[in-house]
């Protein structure tokens, strides 16, 4: 039996659809790219610097943690780069370098690797990073204050801050269409609604994100803001204004849909999305913060494990499920 | 039974020893602690009101019975005359009682200054009553008689923006101080004569 061939033995199934984590990460980054490019166009070199620093430092943190914990290097899956990019999209263009590096550190270490790395994080790491930074350095994240030295060809006030301090009357002058095509101030990646919308639809069609979450997210946001607007239009702005300003669209398509921190079953996805949409409006209209997207999504992340217990009955199970 | 007895004896002995030790220590430190409390809780406000006084107002204090309670008065000497006293009064704020030190010149009944000692107001909003010197400064020179009210209620006090309840509480505290002062003035004048 000397000519016996050495065969590989492994387990079924012997086919794979070919999907990869890296493909997933890079597609999401590509979908977000137009909005980021628009950020570069609006804010120039500083924005490029923030995005580049954020992505590279996120990758470096991931590499260092891999080395420290003695695990295989996982920067190749693109997840670190993706988190860095999402975080950069939430930064104002004038964010100083040390804040960017602290932000990626918090996102990668406190947001992701403390929980065991990819797939284990209960919160969206980028949101953890931005939330902790916002609480620590309010001035950096005050959009009006941060972008003081810029001269735009359009109304330069941060729409949500104007709404918070002046009520709907103060934001009447904003043209909804120019808001939609990105003529507004904000964080680097959040201004260009049109690009975010197309990026999101691309991701849904390619199957990288679940349509249930953004759709219910936007529905929750629109319905709640409409109810507020109808009850007192002198105090609360209309639904379309809320849709097009702040981090709404970025949150709906890119932040709330982060795999590990969002539910996977149908009904929970709807509740999760709608809950985040409703929370945003509650925070914007009666809460203390100017934009509620970050905290609203973090709150719903918290509810995710509980929500995901609502699931269809498995085959061959009798009686109801908890 | 023996064991039981032993348990009781040991516990009793230990408790008595502990109680005795603590009681002795407490007696020993009581005065020191009171001084420390005055120094660190009320001291800053008192010293701020009596800035430039020749004596140590916390050392030079006396007590007068006001009905059931005893009130502490801190004396400040200016130009060799002991005419200024500071005492504490309270009013209801947004988060609870606000302690207010009110300094008054006995010679002309005018307020020398006020300062918040203890409070539990919202940080950054109500707490500005303690930290913002402009709010306290407006009381200076007013006569310590009658009622104090915020301007919304038709009074003379400018409220801190966003902290109307706190401002009202302080106005009430000053009003209280005026009442106390009016009723205790004779005794106060008597005591002050003792300081030379």
């Amino acid at each position, binding site marked *: 039996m000397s000519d016996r061939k050495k065969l590989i033995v492994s387990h079924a199934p012997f086919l794979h659809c070919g999907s990869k984590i890296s493909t997933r990460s890079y597609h999401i980054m590509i979908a977000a790219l137009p909005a980021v490019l628009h950020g570069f166009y609006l804010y120039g070199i500083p924005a490029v610097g923030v995005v580049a620093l954020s992505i590279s430092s996120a990758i470096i943190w991931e590499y260092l943690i891999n080395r420290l914990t003695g695990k295989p290097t996982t920067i190749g899956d693109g997840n670190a780069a993706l988190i860095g990019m999402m975080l950069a999209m939430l930064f104002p263009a004038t964010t100083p370098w040390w804040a960017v590096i602290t932000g990626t550190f918090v996102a990668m270490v406190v947001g992701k690797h403390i929980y065991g790395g990819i797939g284990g994080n209960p919160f969206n790491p980028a949101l953890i990073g931005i939330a902790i930074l916002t609480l620590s350095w309010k001035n950096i994240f005050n959009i009006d204050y941060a972008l003081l030295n810029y001269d735009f060809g359009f109304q330069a006030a941060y729409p949500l801050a104007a709404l918070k301090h002046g009520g709907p009357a103060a934001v009447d002058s904003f043209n909804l269409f120019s808001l939609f095509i990105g003529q507004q101030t904000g964080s680097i990646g959040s201004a260009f609604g049109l690009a975010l919308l197309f990026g999101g639809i691309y991701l849904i069609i390619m199957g990288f994100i679940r349509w249930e979450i953004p759709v219910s997210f936007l529905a929750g946001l629109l319905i709640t803001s409409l109810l507020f607007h109808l009850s007192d239009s002198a105090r609360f702005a209309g639904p379309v204004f809320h849709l097009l300003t702040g981090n709404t669209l970025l949150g709906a398509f890119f932040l709330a849909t982060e795999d590990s921190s969002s539910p996977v079953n149908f009904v929970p996805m709807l509740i999760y999305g709608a809950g985040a949409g409703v929370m945003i409006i509650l925070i914007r209209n009666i809460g203390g913060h100017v934009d509620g997207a970050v905290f609203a999504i973090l709150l719903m992340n918290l509810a995710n494990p509980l929500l995901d217990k609502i699931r269809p009955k498995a085959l061959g199970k009798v009686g109801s499920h908890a | 039974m023996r*064991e039981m007895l032993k348990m009781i004896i040991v516990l009793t002995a*230990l408790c008595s020893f*502990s109680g005795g030790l603590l009681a002795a*220590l407490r007696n020993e*430190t009581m005065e020191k*602690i009171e001084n*420390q409390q005055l120094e660190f809780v009320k001291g800053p406000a008192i010293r701020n009101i009596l800035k430039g006084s020749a004596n140590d107002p916390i050392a030079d204090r006396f007590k007068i019975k006001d009905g059931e309670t005893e009130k502490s008065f801190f004396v400040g000497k200016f130009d060799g005359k002991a005419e200024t006293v500071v005492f504490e009064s309270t009013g209801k704020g947004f988060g609870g009682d606000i302690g207010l030190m009110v300094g008054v010149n006995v010679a002309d009944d005018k307020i020398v200054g006020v300062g918040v000692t203890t409070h539990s107001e919202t940080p950054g909003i109500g707490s500005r009553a303690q930290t913002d010197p402009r709010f306290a400064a407006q009381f200076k020179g007013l006569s310590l008689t009658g009622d104090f009210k915020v301007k919304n209620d038709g009074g003379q006090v400018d409220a801190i923006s966003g902290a109307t309840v706190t401002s009202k509480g302080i106005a009430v505290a000053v009003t209280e101080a005026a009442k106390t002062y009016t009723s205790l003035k004779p005794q106060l004048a008597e005591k002050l004569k003792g300081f030379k």
Partner: protein
Amino acid sequence: MAKSVTQEFTKGLWAEIPPFRLVLGLCPVLAVTKSVENAIGMGVAVIFVLVGSNVLVSMLRKIIPSKVRIACFIIVVATFVTVVELLMQAYTYPLFLKLGIFIPLIVVNCILLGRAEAFAYKNGIISSFADGLGLGIGFTMSLTALAAIREVFGSGTFYGNQVFGPDFQPFNFMVEAPGAFVCLGLMLCVMNSIGKK
């Protein structure tokens, strides 16, 4: 095998350093480590109480009946804590104001009852003294280490002195409660990975 007095002392400094190795007494660790000053104050208070209660319990270990030993330990510990509280009020009042409720809460710190039960009740006075002192110093060291990190990054100061110069914008998160948890977790992680080698 009984250890030498020196060993009893040094084990508290590294091998059994309380918050990190024993994971005991976390309440003050989280609560008072906003600044190095607080941490040292707390540490000194704990050293005093720990040494005192260890020695006293060890002295009385022959007399205390085992059925009521926990009650006796608590009386001893509570006495020392009250002594510390009164002394602090009398001599270091500003520190007392900052540490506040956490001074009386030393009574329920697991380290004290734990050492009384696990060590002092079974060992001689000298060993108990060494054990108490070692663990107390270890506790103070870990508190100070944690406080140093939190204070330097969270307030930009060390023991009240500016570290980074006036342009530094403090990373407030570190001095908030969640920052304490995150910091402690990361330090535990580092300590564990050092311990493994």
